[in-house]
């Protein structure tokens, strides 16, 4: 192998890579927040909504989980304009990632909801609480606690999967790397460093997410749970 590595050129372009990585972080956190809110709503509808709504939510979840993210993106970015819904690549990426995460999040929350002991819900019912009140005061916090580890790994998958939005040229880390390697002909160096940046971001997310778990769920019992118990 006569290849001479030149990582110097990657260093020269580091600001652009970091700029791309920052958009990756923004997209991932944005999609996590939007997708999570949607997932909580969908999980509630799926556990307590009327039957047709439950089935519609179930169908949504199955479609998201059984089709590739890339194809979902193509539908949003290339197909929707045909019926008059146009958006920028970055917006399409954010919407695609959010809708995708919501699908997985709903399923994860469902298992958390199922794990809440039945007598607690019956207790809520016997107190005359509405379904929404039972969900809000009894179910959701405990379900989140059970579901948290799975949601955290799903966040890492979301972040790593966001590289795919480069296919619709949203200018995040992967797209920036593609451009740089095609103009400098240093494919190996750029992809190697970009892969390293992703790895660092994945490890950092895991650290932050476990810290967050401790802050939210471990550090003393929150007031709400005390009276709901």
């Amino acid at each position, binding site marked *: 192998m006569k290849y001479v590595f030149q990582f110097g050129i990657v260093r020269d372009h580091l600001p652009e890579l970091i700029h791309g990585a920052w958009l990756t972080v923004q997209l991932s956190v944005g999609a996590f927040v939007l997708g999570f809110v949607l997932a909580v709503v969908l999980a509630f509808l799926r556990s307590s909504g009327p039957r047709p709504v439950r089935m519609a939510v179930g169908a949504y979840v199955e479609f998201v989980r059984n089709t590739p993210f890339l194809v979902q993106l193509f539908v949003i970015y290339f197909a929707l304009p045909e019926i008059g819904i146009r958006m920028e690549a970055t917006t399409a990426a954010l919407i695609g990632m959010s809708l995708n995460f919501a699908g997985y999040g709903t399923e994860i929350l469902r298992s958390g909801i199922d794990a809440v002991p039945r007598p607690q819900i019956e207790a809520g019912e016997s107190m005359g609480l509405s379904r929404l009140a039972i969900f809000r005061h009894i179910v959701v916090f405990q379900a989140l606690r059970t579901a948290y580890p799975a949601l955290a790994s799903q966040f890492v998958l979301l972040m790593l999967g966001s590289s795919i939005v480069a296919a619709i040229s949203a200018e995040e880390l992967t797209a920036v790397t593609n451009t740089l390697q095609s103009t400098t002909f240093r*494919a190996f160096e750029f992809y190697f460093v970009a892969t390293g940046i992703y790895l660092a971001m994945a490890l950092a997310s895991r650290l932050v997410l476990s810290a967050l778990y401790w802050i939210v769920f471990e550090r003393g019992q929150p007031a709400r749970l005390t009276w709901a118990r």
Partner: protein
Amino acid sequence: MSRDFDWPAFLFILGAVRWTVLLSLIAFAGGAVFGLILAVMRTSRFVVLRGLAAAYIGVMQGTPVLMQLFLAFYGLAVLTGVRIDPWPAVTLAFTLYAAAFLGEIWRGAIQAIPRTQWEAAAALPLPPLAQLRHVILPQALRIAIPPTVGFLVQLIKGTSIASIIGFVELTRAGQLIVNVTFQPMIVYPIIGLLYFALCWPLSLASKRLEGRMDAALGVKPGS
């Protein structure tokens, strides 16, 4: 000049399903071989083997598949100075990717077997590899089947990104048809439905097998 999305165009897309299936199967088979080695390394007594396997799995699960694919396709081509066809690059990348995930799933399955099973096998006395081969793995296999089928779904969906480097499978076939018909609103949903037809039965099977296993192990459904 564009043509309509017609029957031959649909047949072209349908024909491309076989490349998605073939790629998934090759990656799954290759990944199974390396994944089993990784799983055995991860559960071995030797700290170096455990560490190596853990590092490999950590890196593969901590980086995007797309980056792994780019490294295998563009990166290797630059390193060796030989232009690599999409086929070997794509199969290599997805095999290495599948190995990491299967290795991790199967590690969990092996470690779920009670320690007493190892001890009983050692008392027979079977040598270590025979303990693994005849006592542990057959039991671990049962536990491993549902998540393994679940991973197959992830793998099939994942192969769609091979389209990004120009490998013609289902997604790429859809793009090609869109390029001549300009009807993405028809073509991409059809592509999605075809993936759904491949993946959903596997997802259902995985869930059903899991339920059956829980019943066999005396776990209450939903707990």
